[in-house]
């Protein structure tokens, strides 16, 4: 048994922490671009969403006992729901009818997603601390 398989639980939780951090980044980007009407690809900003998948078993976090090896971010996809049309004839990006295409970002659902990401990060951090405490308490068996 290698010593690194002791830390499989910690490595799995680390993948969860990383995924939730990326999720948080995506939410922050959506909130920052909630009013963006111009993008590099042209057109209005479209809300981004994260797609997660189970990590490949060949990753270094793979457990020795055939357990999974955590999560990874598969891709960051674009939400294709149509943009919000706002009547604002004075806006430089308004169409002929005076409507401006605003991003399909709902700030309320982004805030909810942000809370969920931060709580999920906490959950992974707690799992990591529990795995660490288990190793440390097994060390204390030999004492006293």
């Amino acid at each position, binding site marked *: 048994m*290698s*010593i*690194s398989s*002791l*830390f499989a639980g*910690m490595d799995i939780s*680390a993948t969860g*922490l*990383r995924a939730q*951090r990326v999720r948080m980044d995506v939410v922050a980007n959506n909130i920052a671009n909630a009013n963006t009407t111009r993008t590099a690809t042209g057109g209005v900003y479209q809300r981004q969403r994260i797609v997660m998948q189970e990590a490949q078993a060949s990753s270094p976090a793979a457990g020795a006992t055939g357990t999974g090896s955590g999560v990874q971010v598969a891709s960051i996809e674009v939400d294709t729901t149509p943009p919000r049309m706002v009547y604002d004839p004075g806006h430089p990006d308004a169409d002929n009818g005076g409507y401006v295409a605003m991003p399909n970002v709902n700030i309320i659902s982004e805030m909810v997603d942000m809370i969920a990401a931060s709580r999920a990060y906490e959950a992974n*951090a707690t799992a*990591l601390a529990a795995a*660490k405490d288990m*190793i*440390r308490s097994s*060390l204390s068996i*030999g004492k006293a």
Partner: protein
Amino acid sequence: MATIGPAGAIGSIGQMSRALEAAGVGGTHQAREVGGSSFAQMLGGMIDTTNAQQVAADRAIVGLATGQVTDVHEAIIAAEKARISLEILAEMRNKLVASYQEIMRMQI
């Protein structure tokens, strides 16, 4: 970075384990039969892994300071792994010394 702090101390433990190996401790017939490798080899492997964890932790902290590591938790986890494996190694060493002293106290 490899010789900073605890890594240097591990080096001296490594010398101790090599001395043990040279003295034939753990090289008994039964020990080889059970594990496939001697106890001294196992301990040596453990020392190497602990040293690798220490080096990784050092690297992660330097990476965090220089901006190469973007995830704070990566560095903290590397440091925690290094600490726990050092604690395990110290515990193994304590057991080894305790059993050696027990044998030395034996009445002949």
